[in-house]
């Protein structure tokens, strides 16, 4: 789950962004021809991919270790039920493979994963984890994509207007409002949205309510209606956060020397803002958005819970509550995969957005 709680980014220097530790120096004076550039980029990507795989290995191993180190409820006992004798529990433990040493369990898990792309079977429902995850992936994707569109479509223009009209009443109102949106708990916001606008329990019955999700290909209109409220609720904090970030970045950029140059050239103010100011101010926003999308694809637990949307976030939450290790492992790996991929994509994208970045 990721909700932006860090408002420092409004003051962050432009090219910096979190999580970019592997990138080489920004102001590298690489005088390379295109060919060399792309082959070095290719090597960089390969290197990052290898790192990514290693990272997933570490994450999965950590999940195993944490699961066994912390008291998390004995899955065999939970499954055995309240009348089970210790012998029955041991049988089930054996059946689930939980009687083997942790490293051996990990080995078996990884072998199945690598050789058969098999994520194992849920301790609780007996269902294959892979099937459950891939069934829920489009749901989480639906939730994420709409929220991203909203927060980009609203957050960025609001940030721009606020920056241009900096210190005006409009700026003060939107930035004040954004603080409220950032600090409003998602769950609370979700309930408010439901009680106001949902078809089932709302005062104004407009949009689909809790549990109304249907897949896009089944009924696009119902899909859309069911997701409107979750999108806005999930996007609220992000919108506010992005508005503040864009505003901060743009105000800072507009004080840069190259903006003075652009004005001195006699460009219209609109062109100065949009071609020169925004071009520089939005680059870090793009990378930030990439990372946030990556995180969101791992599931938005609170939004999915309050709106009863069967996404990855709920699956992860339920499996943690239920001590369902294979399901926990699957959702954690998926989340890690998205975050690692988003990092890589963002870093590669950055090289295209900012010519100063070379790998």
């Amino acid at each position, binding site marked *: 789950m990721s909700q932006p709680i860090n408002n420092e980014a409004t003051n962050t220097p432009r090219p910096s962004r979190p999580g970019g530790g592997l990138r080489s120096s920004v102001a590298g004076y690489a005088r390379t021809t295109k060919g060399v550039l792309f082959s070095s980029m290719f090597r960089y990507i390969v290197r990052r991919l290898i790192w990514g795989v290693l990272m997933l290995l570490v994450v999965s191993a950590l999940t195993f270790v944490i699961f066994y180190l912390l008291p998390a409820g004995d899955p065999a006992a939970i499954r055995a039920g309240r009348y089970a004798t210790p012998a029955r529990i041991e049988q089930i433990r054996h059946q689930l493979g939980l009687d083997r040493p942790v490293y051996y369990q990990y080995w078996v898990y990884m072998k199945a994963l690598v050789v058969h792309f098999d994520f194992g079977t849920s301790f609780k429902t007996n269902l294959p984890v892979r099937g459950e995850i891939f069934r829920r992936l489009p749901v989480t994707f639906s939730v994420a994509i709409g929220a991203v569109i909203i927060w980009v479509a609203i957050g960025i223009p609001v940030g721009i207007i606020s920056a241009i009209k900096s210190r005006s009443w409009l700026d003060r109102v939107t930035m004040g409002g954004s603080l409220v949106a950032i600090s409003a708990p998602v769950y609370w916001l979700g309930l408010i949205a439901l009680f106001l606008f949902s078809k089932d329990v709302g005062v104004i019955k407009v949009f689909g309510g809790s549990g109304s999700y249907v897949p896009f290909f089944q009924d696009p209109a119902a899909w859309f209606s069911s997701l409107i409220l979750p999108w806005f609720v999930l996007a609220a904090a992000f919108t506010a956060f992005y508005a503040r970030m864009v505003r901060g970045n743009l105000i800072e950029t507009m004080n840069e020397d190259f903006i*003075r*140059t652009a*004005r001195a*050239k006699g*460009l219209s103010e609109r*062109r100065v803002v949009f071609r020169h100011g925004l071009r520089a101010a939005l680059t870090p926003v793009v990378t930030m958005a990439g990372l946030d999308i990556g995180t969101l694809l791992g599931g938005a637990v609170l939004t999915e819970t309050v709106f009863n949307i069967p996404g990855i976030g709920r699956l992860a939450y339920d499996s943690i509550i239920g001590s369902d290790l294979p399901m926990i492992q699957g959702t954690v790996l998926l989340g890690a995969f998205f975050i690692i991929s988003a990092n890589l994509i963002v870093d590669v994208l950055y090289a295209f957005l900012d*010519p100063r970045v070379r790998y």
Partner: protein
Amino acid sequence: MTPEPPDSDNAAAKSRETSKSSSALLEIRDLRVHFRTRDGVVHAVEGAQLSVERGQTLGVVGESGSGKSVTAMTVIGLTRFPNATISGEIEFDGIDLINLPDNQMRRVRGRRIAMIFQDPLSSLHPLYKVGWQIVEAIQTHEEVSTSEARARTIEALREVGIPSPEKRIDSYPHELSGGMRQRVMIAMALVLKPDVLIADEPTTALDVTVQAQILDLIRRLKDEYGTAVVMITHDLGVIAELADEVAVMYAGRVMEKAPREVLFTSPELPYTWGLMRSIPRLDAPRPDRLDSISGLPPSLINLPPGCPFHPRCPYVMDVCLKKEPELKQSEPGHLVSCHLDVKERQQIGRDLQTLYR
């Protein structure tokens, strides 16, 4: 505006020279620029008087905060902030720049009055190729095709001494050296053949050897195009190289104004003396210490009463604390704003110059 054929450049330059004698191309009278801030009103420029003629170079010298950059920015209308109050007169080729509407001001900016800045790396957009940035400048003011603008850009880059400009045009600023970047800035400023080039500390951020090259370039281009140059600097060495006329600014005022030779041989203002002593001279024995002006530049919010320089002036008199001196002619073409007796200050100035020479 139709593009001029390249070989008509000299002719154009000459035609400008013929009209030069009539009056100043750019004339600033009693310019006042105030900014309202949270801490109070900043009196950035307080009655500046400057003028420059075609083909001439005006050097504006002063410490940081003396109002020289604000004056330059005001000329091209870049200080029109909501919190700014601008009064006085700026007349450029018969146009009243102070009251010129924004959209017309934009046409003057870049096309007729161009400006280059101190740090060429930060002054160029880091994410656009240098050629794109120059092409943009051309196409902002002239209806020309991109390919033509590109050709002119290559030409301009060649003109400012950038080797293989057809390649460099597609470089990003960070791929160029500091000197090259400033050449790009100059090419961008001069590609539209402006009447006035305002150079705000153009060499400060550069290596000493590169500084000389850039100054040579500016001088050569000025001579070639007949462009009027306003050279803003805190470095009297640059002034000595380039300026025809020198204005010394302090606390938003022009305190001394003279032809270069006059200023360097007989400066009459205690502040100018201080400035001169703060340059280490290469052709004189190195003094024990750099004898710079004591004290800090004044706060532009709470200016001292009387002469703004009096708290730092070694020759301060009672009158200096009460009355602000006027900028008055002491010799023909030499204006000074100081309460010291004319004879006395001329004598001290000459003595000091001999001493340090």
